[in-house]
């Protein structure tokens, strides 16, 4: 799976990757999603990435901006455009394809 290199990869390589994970408190799904995401990023991204976690229980108004209804939802803020990934990110291949993540060794 580390060999995944989507064709669009070259364009996005230069930009910093900014990910936002929407969660609701410390629910098991939310915690699992965060752990899974960190692991994926470590495995597949250069150090040039940023994850911010938005707890909608604390900031409910932020849900409207990215049209969040499902929890957890991962949004790639930069580079754009991109699909949203919902779920606890327990299926890493779909996350990698969905986010068009670069592999570290690529």
């Amino acid at each position, binding site marked *: 799976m580390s060999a995944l290199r989507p064709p669009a990869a070259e364009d996005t390589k230069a930009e910093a990757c900014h990910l936002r994970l929407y969660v609701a408190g410390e629910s098991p799904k939310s915690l699992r999603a965060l752990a899974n995401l960190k692991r994926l990023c470590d495995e597949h991204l250069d150090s040039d990435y940023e994850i911010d976690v938005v707890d909608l229980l604390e900031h*409910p108004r932020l849900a409207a901006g990215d049209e969040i209804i499902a929890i957890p939802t991962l949004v790639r803020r930069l580079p754009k455009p991109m699909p949203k990934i919902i779920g606890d990110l327990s299926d890493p291949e779909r996350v990698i394809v969905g986010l068009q993540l670069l592999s570290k060794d690529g």
Partner: protein
Amino acid sequence: MATHTVQDPSPEGLELLAKAATGIQGLDQVTGGGLPRGRSTLVCGPAGCGKTLLGIEFLVRGIKDYGEPGVFVAFEETREDLIANVASLGFDLSRHEADGELALEHVGIDSSKVVHSGEWDLEGLFIRLGAAIDAVDAKRVVIDTIENLFAAFPDGATVRSELRRMFRWLKDRGVTAIITGERGSGAFTRHGIEEYVSDCVIVLDHRVSEETSTRRLRVLKYRGSHHGTNEYPFLIGKSGVTVVPITSLGLEHDASGERLSMGVDRLDEMLGGRGVLRGSSILVSGTAGTGKSTVAAQFCDAACRRGERALYFAFEESEAQIVRNMASVSMELQQWVDRGLLRFKCARPSLLGLEAHLSSMQDLVTEYEPSIVVLDPISDLLTAGASRDVSAMLTRQVDFLKVRGVTALFTSLDQDLQLEEANQQIAALIDVWLLVTSQEHNGERNRALSVLKARGMAHSNQVREFLLTSQGIDVAGIHGVGKVLTGSARVAQEASRRSDADEDVVAVGTRSSL
């Protein structure tokens, strides 16, 4: 229970469930007081049946009439679309929003931009909904429509269990909610949601029969409450949704003892000497050219003379034509039009279809508040629908007018069998039935008028000659005993009586007088 409910004076005396009145005309009657308070009601039906509108009106009436703020969650339409769509019904959503009584929450779901990876739930939707409820302190919530969630998420099982959780959650929040769903083939909703919403399910329908489309509403289930089980027609008119139960409205109106003149002294005499009862329904039926419209116009004229407003629905003639024709019997209707006491509404019923026609008539009656209304002729309505539908619609129209205490006069052209049937069906609704006929006798054709029925009053049993003259309309006195003299025979009789210096014998008709 937090709110102590006074025992409803319903015959069952078991009205224990707290209800939230919708404020939607007719719906509260059908549901026995409104939707279950603090619970969710599923409103389902096919596309275009009026689900969204019903939901919006539920919120708007809640704000306006009951001081209950609301939240509208739309998956399909944007905030701007919603505001624009209901503006024509007089609902100013943006004002309610600005006043902090309404929250419009558009939730965009684009399934093409979503990738699934692992377990998820709809907590985000709950949080948004919760925030919106808190923002306006909402007591009412509408979610339109849940089918969009199934379309957006391929994982139907999760959506289903999340929706079940949502219904519980809404109940815990204590809001009265309407959830809308698309009707699927075989089931009431495409995904069987009705199984989860166990408290109240309302089914909307939109059927076309004989080229006339009718919207219908049915309360499929209402736990803990009695409710009307029929399908009730409902309209979307200028002022929103109106559910029209045929049976419940008409029999609760007040009965007035006040009498109204028909504008012809001798006709009033035939009706117990004082004319018809206010708020009654009058049918003037007869063959072509017998002067039905003239009787109707005279009735309007009499009302305007008393300073009351009259509304004349003409299905065959234009306003100018009626005014001109009535001038030939020295009835000056234009003066009443100019003074705002008389209004004409001329339209062919086939133009709109029955329901729309009824709705536009009701809107006008509500707006103009006339004391009398004329429908001339109702037989024309048959061109706009099947006779069963026409009589159902007339029933509703009669009910509608009676409840408002409006006196209604209908004319009907008796010609074919189909009409006889329709007349028979509406006869039960009619309080006073005048029959005008054209009788051929002695080489003349003369008009004759009789009272077929007049509820609650003594009335003449005689057939009188009915005269349209350049001085106005009149009903001739009775001459002779045992037979009705009309035309030249009557003139001859009158002349011979005058020569005897005899007075006209005007028999004030009661059944006992002959």
